[in-house]
Each structure stands twice: as C-alpha cells, then as structure tokens.
C-alpha cells in the first residue's frame, strides 16, 4: 500500500515518491485517502462522508469502493 507515502499538496497535487507518479485529486479523494491510510473501514468512511456532505451513505459507499478500484489500478493500493 503506497497511499501512506503519497504527498498531497494544497493544490490537490499528489506525488508518489516511491514510483515517481504524479496525480491530481479533489478534496473528497484526499479525505478518503487519508482515512484509508489510517486503516478506517470502508463503511465508516461512507458514513463520515454522508454526515459531512449532501450524499446518502449508499451512494458514498459505492463511490468509496469505486475509488479503491481506481487506486488499485494506479498501483496505490494492493
């Protein structure tokens, strides 16, 4: 898992110092990455999102799963 190493700056630009890959990401993505890096469960992340934003827990859960899929494809999660 490389997301712990991901250096995200204030612009939403991320640099992976182990692979040299660079990314842009939005605030929601940043929050999820931080939670995943701390080992927070998917369900818990979805719940947090639904409390903070105007989104149902159901939709947020789908998004978290989809987002994890993307992180895997980018080699940021195993």
């Amino acid at each position: 898992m490389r997301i712990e190493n991901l250096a995200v700056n204030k612009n939403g630009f991320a640099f992976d110092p182990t692979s040299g890959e660079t990314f842009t990401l939005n605030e929601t993505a940043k929050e999820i990455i931080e939670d995943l890096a701390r080992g927070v469960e998917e369900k818990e992340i979805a719940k947090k999102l639904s409390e903070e934003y105007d989104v149902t827990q159901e939709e947020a859960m789908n998004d978290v799963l989809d987002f994890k899929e993307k992180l895997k494809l980018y080699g940021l999660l195993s």
Partner: protein
Amino acid sequence: MAKKTYEKPTIIKVESSHSKAGVPMPKQKIRKKIGGVAIDEMVERFGSPLFIFDEKAIREKYRSAYEAFSSRYPNVQFGWSYKTNYLKAVCAVFHQEGAIAEVVSEFEYEKARELGIEGKDIIYNGPYKPYDSLVTAAKEGAKIHIDTFDEINDLEKVADELGFEIPVAIRLNMDTGIYPQWSRFGFNIESGQAMDAVKRIKAGGKLRLTGLHAHIGTFMLDANAYKVETTKMVRLMNEVEEKVGFTIEYIDVGGGFASKNHLRGIYQPPEVVVPTIDDYAEAITSALYENIRGNSYPKLYLETGRHLIDEAGYLVTSVVASKTLPDSRRSYIVDAGVNLLYTYFWYKFNIELTREVSGISEPAMINGPLCMNIDVIDESILLPRLRRGDKLVISPVGAYNVTQWMQFIRYRPRVLMVTEEGNVELIREREELSDIEKREILPDKLKLK
C-alpha cells in the same frame, strides 16, 4: 448545520496521453435550456431519454438559407428532404415556411400527401419507384426524377395508361472533383449517358423533359464542388435546349450541405471547416449566371436537409450508472445509445451538461444501454464526476436520427418540439409493446397459453 456540496472522489494520473485530465480545462459545456425551456423540467415531465426539436431554430435556419439563395437568385424553391427527418411536425414547419416536399420512396410520398401536400408540390426521387407509385405520382402531377432507362420505359407505359404526356426530369451524376463520386444514381454527364437519356425520352414521344436534377454527395465541405456541378448542369441544359428542343424549366442541384457537426477523422472543428450557407449559395448562383444563355432563368430547386435540421435537434439522455474500467477510464452508462443515434458512425457529437458540476475532469467514455460492445456514444471525453440522474445533452442530432433509428431491444423515446412561443409539444409518443407486436402473427401451434 447545512451539509457541504458533495463532489465524488476523483484522482487522475498526470500523464501525457491525458494531458488535460485533472487540469481545470476545458471548462465544462453547459446547456440548461432548449428554445427557452428548461431541459430538466422537460425530462421531469416527459421522461428520459428525449429527442427535443427547437422550432424557432428550424425556422431561423430555413429563413437564412432561403435568404442566402433568393437574394442572389430570386427564382428559387426549397424542397424539404423527407428522409432527413419525416416527423410530421418537422415537415409541417418547413412546409409552412414555403418548402415543397422531396421524397425518395412511395412511403415518403404517401407521408407527404397525408400531411396535405399536393402532388405538384412533391419532388419524387429515388432509384426505385414502384410502378403503382409512378402512376399515382404522374396522375397527381408530381415532379418525377428519372433514375434509369428502365424507369423511362415504366413511365412511358404510365403515359399510355393515363393518356397524356408526362413532364419529367432526369437525375444526373458527374465528376465534381470530390471523392467519393456519387456515380450510382442517374445518368452520367461525361460519358454521354445523360444526353442519350434525353434523346431516348425525345424519341419515345410520351414524356417531356422539363428538369435536370443531381445530388453530388453528402456533408460536402468543399463549396466549389457545387460550382462545378451547377456549371455542368447548365451546360447540359443549354445543349439539351439547343439540340433536342426540350425547354428546361428547372434545375435541381440537390442537397448535401454540411451542418455544424464534427465529422470523425477530421481534426479541425466544424466552425473552421464547414462552409457557410453563403459560400454554397455563391458557388451555385454564380455558376448559374456565368453559364445561362439568353434570358430564361430556370427555377433553382434545392433539397438541402441536414444543413436545415441537424442543429435544431437534441437528444437528452440520463446517467444511469458509472464504473471504472480496467484501463482506469470511467464508463458512464446512459439511457440512450447508438440505436437512437445512427449518425454516431460519422460524428463526434457535442455533449453538454444541464448543470455545473464542480471538480476535476477525468477521461471517460459514454456507453448506451444496448448489450453490445459497439454502443459507444463518445469514446474519449473529459468530464467531471457525474452522479446518477445527471443529464447529457447530445447535439447536433436533428438529421437522420429520427428516421434511421432502430427499434432494437428498447422502445423509441418521446420526441418533443419546443415551439416559437416557448410551449412544449409532444410530437411523437414513446413506443410501447403493442406498437411492435401489432404486426406479428403467432401461428396457433406455437401459442404458449
């Protein structure tokens, strides 16, 4: 406490193949209204997907095209090309504006008559016109454009049957310097076939040649091809009048003018490559003036379809699902597919959203609801993360789609017209099972219940 606006999580790898992804460029294209009416409201009332036509846009387009020609060559008449869009309401708008009908089959002929168009105001084209339809068309005084020598024989028989001389036109094909050359329809000018056809008609003594017609191609990006076409037609007219003695009353240069659609395989955007209506008009009318001898100016007929209707038509479709593809692209599944968008073969459509979606853009593809791999409306588009129910407005789709759409595994959707006054009219109802089953017959021994 009010909750914050939700932006779906998005992460994009910065790589050269998607050098704009993640960059707050391009700005998302937004269209909230068609003809002054909110798209979201129309979808709420009539469902999704929806074809929507803008009456005002149709009339304005027609008027500017008519003006481009009539200001240069007053003796001009437009014929509405039914095959481009034969929804009654659309045809009626063009007829109200003064267009006659241009049909290419007995089905379209019947449609025009049903709508109240008289035979004399119908141009009857096409490579196959069933005998009975020729009898009707001749009886009703339609402008019949002959495509083959076989059709000359048929029409002479019709003339015998009806007991009068039938006025006819012949369709021509020629080299106008463009590729592909449409040589399949009508009689070739360069080879002398066209002149042979004229002489054949004269020798038969039962038909009277009154017009010349040609249609050189479709989505023509070179206005000059029309100058070549018109020049060749007028020269043939001069020759026919001089050598054979027919009086040519009209020249029909066909259609094929491009719309502001983005042809696949052409890099430059339509606003750069598509000629203006004035370019086409100038090419055609200047060729008329340069080549007409004497004082008789034949009536100029035009059958432009796509140019007049394409940009007035929109397809509104809704996102029903989304997923991440193995190549990390996003796929949006929407409720309209290539079954409704025959012209996706040629065009990369303009795709707009009905609301501002914040967030960074990511590479996506838009897939329709068909259970088929080819159902791709756009293979590569940068979009912010959309939510279920978000709407995409696809355009220009006014030409050919509502005639060539397929009833394949789904019902064809409703079609609306937003009127000049801003009212929303339902002009074609959504299909239902009985529409399709009505024509089917299940043999008794196969009945299951």
